[in-house]
């Protein structure tokens, strides 16, 4: 399972898609419940088992999921669960805390093309998600919608004409849709414009989170921007609104970057080369530091201050240098120091494979 697991969910980080230097990935998720069963945490073990049985049976029969993979969280080793989380394929809620056992019958269904999946027995019975590289909101919505149509013909959803698709939490009811884009915004952070931008988003019904979604911190200048409301607007309107705002944020970010380049070219050049130098030569490095340095390198490449390194490689470093990935590759639990050493070695290896840059 270990090798297989490390191959999962690569599509979204391949660095393709429009604006891949600013928008890392796009995700659309739809929350759905089965009409016949109690929701979420109130559901009995027997009900959760039935939900899993019905969902996996449906998955075996719908075109988009047929031939894909299914993982019961309880059957995965703790490190494997965290690998899935670090790949953004599952939520923290689905895999449970570090010490607590995962919820019974919590599971992940993945389509053969693993940009598409379903979390089963999370807060809602089903959380369908489409995850794509770059800025591709409409594609992600169409993909999630198609999967929803296919599953909805096999399963009976909880739905009523007034409130729409019924969810455990009233913040998700209606469309059940949460669209989000993971944006890299170092220009706005460096020019200190980011607070204004984030504040403006709040006023138009959007919200932002850190790298791993709800409750996570902002690292490496990554912001996950998503719609906050799900009811009273249809799915296309929700997606379009986010699309427009993200386009605007991309423009602001591009502007901020060109201002930095115009007003402080030497400082910027020094900053990005230092970031590259540290990543290229450090012997022990924390994940947070890698993220911050990668942010600098990403910025440097986009501003053509550094020669081309593929965005895919940067994304790969970002995913694979997380704690659970390092442990999974090492095949044993690692202490913090050992992790930092392995992380540094891994980053050096990838960057030297990518070819040495001129000094």
């Amino acid at each position, binding site marked *: 399972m270990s090798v297989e697991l490390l191959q999962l969910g690569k599509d979204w980080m391949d660095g393709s898609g429009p604006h891949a230097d600013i928008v890392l990935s796009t995700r659309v998720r739809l929350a759905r*419940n*089965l*009409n*016949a*069963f*109690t*929701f*979420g*945490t*109130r559901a*009995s073990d*027997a*009900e959760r088992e*039935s939900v899993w*049985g*019905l969902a996996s*049976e449906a998955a075996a029969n719908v075109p988009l999921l047929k031939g894909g993979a299914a993982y019961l969280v309880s059957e995965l080793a703790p490190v494997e669960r965290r690998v899935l989380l670090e790949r953004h394929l599952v939520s923290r809620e689905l895999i449970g805390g570090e010490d607590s056992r995962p919820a019974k019958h919590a599971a992940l269904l993945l389509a053969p093309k693993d940009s598409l999946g379903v979390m089963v027995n999370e*807060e809602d019975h089903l959380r369908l998600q489409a995850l794509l590289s770059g800025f591709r909101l409409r594609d992600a919505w169409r993909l999630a*919608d198609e999967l*929803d149509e296919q599953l*909805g*013909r*096999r*399963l*009976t*959803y*909880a*739905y*009523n*004409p*007034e*409130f*729409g*698709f*019924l*969810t*455990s*939490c*009233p*913040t998700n*009811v*209606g*469309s059940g*849709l949460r669209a989000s884009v993971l944006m890299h915004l170092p220009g706005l952070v460096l020019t200190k414009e980011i607070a204004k931008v984030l504040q403006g988003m709040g006023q138009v*019904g959007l919200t932002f989170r850190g790298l791993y979604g709800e409750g996570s911190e902002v690292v490496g200048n990554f912001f996950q921007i998503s719609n906050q*409301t*799900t*009811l*009273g*607007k*249809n*799915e296309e309107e929700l997606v379009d609104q986010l699309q427009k705002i993200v386009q605007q944020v991309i423009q602001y970010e591009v502007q901020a970057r060109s201002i930095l380049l115009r007003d402080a070219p030497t400082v910027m050049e020094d900053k990005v080369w230092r970031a590259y130098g540290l990543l290229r030569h450090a012997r022990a490095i924390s994940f947070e530091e890698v993220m911050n340095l990668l942010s600098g390198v990403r910025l440097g490449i986009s501003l053509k201050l550094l020669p081309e390194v593929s965005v895919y490689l940067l994304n790969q470093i970002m995913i694979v240098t997380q704690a659970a990935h390092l442990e999974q590759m090492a095949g044993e639990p690692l202490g913090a120091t050992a992790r930092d050493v392995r992380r540094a070695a891994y980053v050096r290896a990838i960057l030297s494979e990518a070819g040495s840059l001129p000094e």
Partner: protein
Amino acid sequence: MQCDDCGSSDAVIHVTQVESNEMNTFHLCEACATAKGLETGTVPASPLTDFLAQMGTGMETGPAAVTDERCGTCGLTLSDFRKAGRLGCADCYTHFARHLRGLLRRLHGGSQHVGKVYLAEENGHAERAARMVNLRRSLQQAVESEDFERAATLRDQIRQMDEA
């Protein structure tokens, strides 16, 4: 029992205070308790429950608050919902609709779904069978734990499904 403070309304809050080894018990009506800054609900666990608790203070003055409303299908009460901020089943949305509309308007700016229309096809046989098994199991549990109110609800649901 009358409120110790105003002497006119019924006391609904009973506070025991221990100060320098002396114990005093006050009986207060809701208005006086609120005026003294006493929390009448439980401590909210999240912004949403905080929000729900605030809404609740308006609702509790109505006659509906005397008996806590309960969803006939899953047994969730309105106060469970206010505490956890989560609904228990599809029928909760129907049972608590009049409480939910205002909340949804404030959360989303609207309370009417305008997105995808879903028409369940006649494909729910497997689900219905599974639900029947679950209902029977829950009924057994309810009887074992002597929760007869819940058992009666479950029995009615099983009957309904049998007839259908």
